[in-house]
């Protein structure tokens, strides 16, 4: 497993991400996972905070969306973001493994789904799906 990974694209712009999760442990781990991959990221504690951040004008290359959160859950937040015209890569993250529940989440507008716990390998597999003008060196 590579520990020195360059997270910058050929054109020099750093990748950005938003971690949306209500659990402080997951927030800490996912934030650090992304950080170690060279991806600048911030954390939202629930779906509503994620929406508010986007309303303030911020955009991200990648959104890691937890499913179960208070105030506004991941399914609703994903639907709202897509309705707002957000085209970022949104990867749903959850411990749920029932096909129907995953399907429901995907249909809200996800580009990918990963089962928790997250690892750097899982994040890299998400990143490989992102189409970008630069080339990826992971």
């Amino acid at each position: 497993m590579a520990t020195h990974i360059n997270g910058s694209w050929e054109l020099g712009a750093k990748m950005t991400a938003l971690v949306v999760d209500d659990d402080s442990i997951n927030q800490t781990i996912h934030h650090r996972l992304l950080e170690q991959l060279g991806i600048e990221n911030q954390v939202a504690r629930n779906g509503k905070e994620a929406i508010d951040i986007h309303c303030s004008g911020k955009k991200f290359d990648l959104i890691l969306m937890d499913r179960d959160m208070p105030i506004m859950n991941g399914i609703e937040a994903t639907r709202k973001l897509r309705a707002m015209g957000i085209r970022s890569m949104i990867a749903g993250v959850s411990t749920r493994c029932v096909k129907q529940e995953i399907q429901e989440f995907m249909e809200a507008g996800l580009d990918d789904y990963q089962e928790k716990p997250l690892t750097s390998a899982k994040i890299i597999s998400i990143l490989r799906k992102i189409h970008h003008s630069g080339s990826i060196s992971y």
Partner: protein
Amino acid sequence: MDSVVQLQRQLVDYTVQLFNEGFLDDQFNQLQQLQDESNPDFVVEVVTLFFEDSERLLDELAKALEQQSVDYTKIDAHVHQLKGSSSSIGAQRVQKVCIGFRNFCEERNIEGAKNVCIK
């Protein structure tokens, strides 16, 4: 310096033991991998967070089980959270216990659930 080396060796032995006994799983390796010179205390910080969070959740669970009419939705939410955070740090034994606990709850088996809490 000798005592530091000895402590380090003890830590390695203890960690291996925890893996062998199924308390920890591969995810813990991922956590250790996230620690480096720029984040030297990462594992300790996360594990501490986990203990604080779990203590709070277990308190809530115990309270909920003591109620006259048990609110299973609330209990389910707490255990779901504990299951999630324990799997994120590689605390395999805790995660497995959570799964067993939830089965008790589904069967409305209060005594079974209480026994799990005590453990």
